[in-house]
Every structure is written in C-alpha cells, then in structure tokens.
C-alpha cells in the first residue's frame, strides 16, 4: 500500500489503475457508476436503498421549502442525494402544447418504456408559453449525486490515519474502526461529499457498497434504480456506454447534454462515478473544474520550506550585531 501513501497524485491523468497503484495485485477491474440524469425521475429509491442497505441513521426529516429536495446534499448520513432543479428552459425539441385528448393511454402503457415520442404523442417536462394567469411551464432536472470515487482522491491522500483506503475495485472506503474524526478529509474533498457524523465524530461516505461488490452484487442504489439512471459496471464499459448515450441525445436535439467526470485528464484523474448532465455542473451543485488539492502539495511543501528557512534565518539574524545596553542603564 505504500505507493499510494507516499507518492502524490500525478497530474497528467496517465495513471488509470488506482487499485494497482495502491498495491493490489491481480485485482478485479475497476468498477464505477454512470449516472444518466436524462432518465432520472427523482423517485429517490436510490437514497432509500442506500440508507436501508448500509444501515445509515436518520439525519433529519425537515422540509427545505426550496424544491422537492428535502435531502439538501450529500453528507455523513446521506450517501446518495437526488437534486431537483426547476428551469424554464426546453429539453431539446420537446414541446408542451400537444393535444392529448385522443390519446389512448392504456395502449401507450402496453408499449412499455422508451416508446418513441412520435408514437407516444407526449413529450415530457417542457416549457410552453405562459398561461393566462402568468404561470410558465418548466423542466425538471433531477440527478442522483454520489461520492465520485476519484482516481486521485484528496480525502484518501490527506487522511493522517490511513483510515481511508483504496479497495481492489478502485473505490475509496473509510475504515470505521480506524477513523479518529480529525475531519481533514471533509474540506479536502473537491465535491463536498465526505462529512463527520454529528454525535459520532467519525467521517462517513459512500463505499460503493463494498460488501455487495465483494459478493458479486451491484450496489444497492443501482439495483433499486427503476429507470437505469444509475448504471453500475466496469468503468471502461460505462464510459463507452456514456459516450454513445450523449451522442444519442445530441442527435435528438438535446445540445445541453454533456458528460461530467468521465475524462481521465481532468483535475482528479477522472471519476469512478461520473454523470450525464443536462446543464452546467454548478447548476447541480457540482464544481465546474474540480482539482485534487494534493496535486499542488509538492509545491506547497517547497513554499513552506522556504518560509521555514526564512524564519530560521531571520530569527538568527536578529541576534547579529552588537549587544547594546539600553539608554540610561549601564552594561552589566
């Protein structure tokens, strides 16, 4: 394990085998999540499945009043978080002003999911012109956020106890019996994922269901997702699937569709959990250009070394020069 502990993350994204770097030999292939937000329906089954499977305690049952999102964000006791964004903006070429009076909904239901719009005669979540009372239609963006399991994970790099570690699957997991609650991983995470649990003190986050992976099962959230918005699998395969999907959406006119966290050349060496988004990342509460803070650590140590030497030199210099007796007193 010493390799990943002593060597700061390379910044060129060339090293795409985090498990191997961490010293796992003959490890299984790296797995991850591809969260395709274009098919997320905001049901929060992932949140529930995650809480149930991982026995995460309740962390408040309050209403935020800001949207259907009463979870607020990821935290020590929220490892999946469904974001809800309301926008008066169309989704591709979708339209709202469609007359549905003659539609046989039972016949539509028999067609199953993914019925082509021409056949469905229904286009979902679309803004039209304002109605006479001034209300406008809006589109919903829904996205299930999760720990990104970065290729170069800042939380893991800065953990002083070795509690955070890289698994053989290339994921990042906290060892609850080691963590002493120093809280350093919390501000280190560029995505604001990991957090200390109030009343417990230790840091917690998504484990990508390490226990289920070990048993050959997919994580609970992906298993529970009814629309395949959360897809689990080998990261390479997910990246290919994601590229095809974004192409499909562009062709359909959804020019806003873009992948986020898929690029091994980004500031964290690519995410183990990446996304297809329909707007800028910050709209979903994601950083537009995240970077692993330890990328700059060698430079930080150099500046700190210079400052320490300057302090030693400066404070040595103040002893130079003749020792004068203060005015009005005689030298002892």
């Amino acid at each position, binding site marked *: 394990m010493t390799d990943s502990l002593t060597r700061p993350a390379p910044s060129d994204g060339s090293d795409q085998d985090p498990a191997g770097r961490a010293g796992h030999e003959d490890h299984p292939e790296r797995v991850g999540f591809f969260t395709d937000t274009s098919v997320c329906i905001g049901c929060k089954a992932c949140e529930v499945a995650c809480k149930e499977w991982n026995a995460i305690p309740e962390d408040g049952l309050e209403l935020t009043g800001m949207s259907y999102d009463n979870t607020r964000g990821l935290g020590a006791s929220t490892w999946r978080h469904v974001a809800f964004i309301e926008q008066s903006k169309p989704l591709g070429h979708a339209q709202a002003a469609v007359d549905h009076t003659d539609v046989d909904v039972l016949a539509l239901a028999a067609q*199953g*999911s993914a019925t082509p719009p021409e056949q469905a005669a229904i286009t979902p979540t679309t803004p039209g012109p304002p109605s006479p009372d001034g209300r406008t239609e809006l589109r919903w963006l829904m996205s299930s956020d999760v720990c990104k399991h970065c290729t170069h994970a800042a939380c893991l790099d800065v953990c002083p106890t070795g509690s955070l570690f890289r698994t053989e699957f290339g994921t990042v997991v906290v060892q609850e019996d080691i*963590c002493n609650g120093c*809280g350093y991983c919390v*501000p280190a995470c560029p995505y604001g994922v990991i957090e200390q649990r109030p009343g417990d003190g230790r840091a917690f986050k998504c484990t990508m269901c390490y226990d289920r992976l070990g048993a050959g099962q997919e994580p609970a959230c992906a298993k529970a997702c009814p629309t395949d918005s959360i897809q689990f699998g080998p990261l390479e395969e997910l990246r290919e699937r994601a590229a095809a999907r974004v192409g499909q959406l562009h062709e359909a*006119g959804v020019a806003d569709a873009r992948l986020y966290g898929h690029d091994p050349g980004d500031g964290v060496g690519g995410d183990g959990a990446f996304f297809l988004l329909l707007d800028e990342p910050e709209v979903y509460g994601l950083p537009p250009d995240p970077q692993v803070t330890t990328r700059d650590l060698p430079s*930080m140590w150099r500046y700190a070394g210079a400052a320490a030497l300057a302090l*030693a030199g400066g*404070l040595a210099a103040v002893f130079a020069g003749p020792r004068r007796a203060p005015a009005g007193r005689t030298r002892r």
Partner: protein
Amino acid sequence: MSTSDVTKGGIRGERPGREAEAGRGLRPGRRGRRGRRGEELMVPQAEFTSYYGRPVITPPSWQARDIAGYFFLGGLAGAGSVLAAGSHLTGRRTAARALKISSTVAIAGSAAALVHDLGRPERFANMLRVFKPTSPMSMGSWLLAAYGPAAGAAAVLDVTGLLPRTGRTATIGAALLGPAVAAYTAVLAADTAVPAWHEGYRELPFVFTGSAAVAAAGMGLMTAPPEENGPARRAALLGAAVETAAVRAMERRVGVVAETYRHGRAGRLMRAARALTALGALGAALPARCSRPAAAVSGAALLAASACTRFGVFHAGVASAEDPKYTVLPQRERLERRQAEQAGKPAEAERAEQA
C-alpha cells in the same frame, strides 16, 4: 407501430429505459433552435449559478478555538524556540528561560487543542499509525511528536539546571524543528479544497511564519528585561513586515476570494491584526528598548495581533467554503481560460504549418 408483449422470457420488443428518447420532440427543428449555439443564447450566462445557493464543498467542521488556536500556539512555540536558542547561545538567560517555558506551554496547549478537536479523541494515537507525506496532518503529527519532547526537555532542564549539555542539545533541537512547526500549518490549511486557503498556498506559509515571529517576539518583549529584548524587538519588526507583505500578496493572488479576507468576521479580525501589529511594532521600535511596561504592552499587542491573523485566516477559509461563489467562479474562470487555450492551439499549429 411497435408493441411489446409480455412473454415468458420477459417483455418482447422492449427497449431499455436508459435509451429513452428524452427531448426528441414531435416536430424536430420547428422552433428553429438547432445546435448548441441556439441553446446558449436562450439563457444568458449569469455571473455564476449554484444549487439553491448551497456550498459546493463542505466547510471544515473544525472548531475555530481549537484549530485557529493551534495555528497561533504552534507558531508561538516554534518561533519561540528559535528565539530561545538564540538567547541561550548569546547569554540572555532570562529571555531564554522564559521563551523555553512559553514554547513548552504553547505546544502542550496545541496538542490538547488538537486532541480535543478530534471526533474520537481517544483514538488520537492513530495519528502515528502511518507515515504519510501526502497528508500534512500526518507529517505534522510526527513533527509534533519530535518537537514537543525537545521543547519540553529544553524548558525542564533549564529550570532545574540539570544536565546542561543535554539541555543545550534539546534547545538547539527544538530551534531546528521550530520553524517547521510554525510553517507546516500553512500547508495543513492550504492542502484542502477551501478556496481562501488553497488559492493562497504560495503566500500562506509566509503569513504564518511572519505571524509566528510576531507572536514569539511579543512573548519575548513581555517576559524579558529590556537589556535582553533587543532580538525580540528586531524580530517583531521583521515578523510584522513579512506578515503584512505576505497578506497583501496573498489577497492579490486569490482574486475574488480575497473578499473573504475583507468582509465579515474574518475582515474584522484581519483589520484588528493589522492595527495591533502596527501598534506592537511601533512600541517595539521605540519605547520598548527602555521601558518595561511599554515593552509588555507592545508584546501583548503583538501576541494579540498574531492570534487575530490566525483566527482571521481560519474564518476567511470557512466563509470561502460556505459560499458557492468562491468555489464556482475561480473554477469557471480557470476552465474558460483552458478552453480558450485549447481552442487557440489548433490555430497556432495551422499558422506554424503555413510558415
């Protein structure tokens, strides 16, 4: 029209939901909005967007009293050990003894603050479970494990007069480790995603060591007789100059994030630090050379100034983490700069080919 039937083998003719044709529309192109350009014109770019104003990163859960207090005490101890060794070697016995004691008390207080801030204080020993250069906190733990006993031995052996040669070695050892103790805390803060700390990682170590020199000089002025406080007075001026310059350079460097150093609680603390530093430095330059009360007042002002700087930096960091603006705007700028560079590259290559 295709239909799907439920059969023994599942639903026939069904396509996976993940291929849902979201956004396809009934009459593609009728609205005349095709391609990326049209979409972007629809919604003018706001200065920055966020998810209901919620922070992107999680602010540190550290207590200001513990962690900013540790930054202050660690600096006081580290720089104090250097002044103590200098005083020891130049025969300023009173100043040396006072600074050795203050460094020991300060580093003991630091350790107590650090353990107190842990979510699981009983597991503090896990800090020495690994030796991990990628974690400034791990390096700091090892540094404190070496520095603490050295500073303690220097003080105890000075006060008791036992083992003078060992005492001298401990004094020098503490003086060699002291600057590292004072400087590494800047890396501890900067090695996070907190914009006010990370963006200023080049200057922050100088802010911290300057502030440490100011604190140690203040302690020297408060405790040493005027005939021994020459080095402390000069250290006060030097530290004040370095700290003031470094804070300015850092505020220029961090761009929009500098607001967090100028407004709110952090702004008040940084302004108080500037005023107290000026007062203390002025006192150190003029009356402290002959008047013990004046030296004590300047010393107290310098100590307070150093504490204000550390708490100011701490609160600026928390403020910069709590407002998504300071995470999103600098990253957006960086991203756009990089995209512009990448867009410029092919054009450059073309020009090079033609030439």
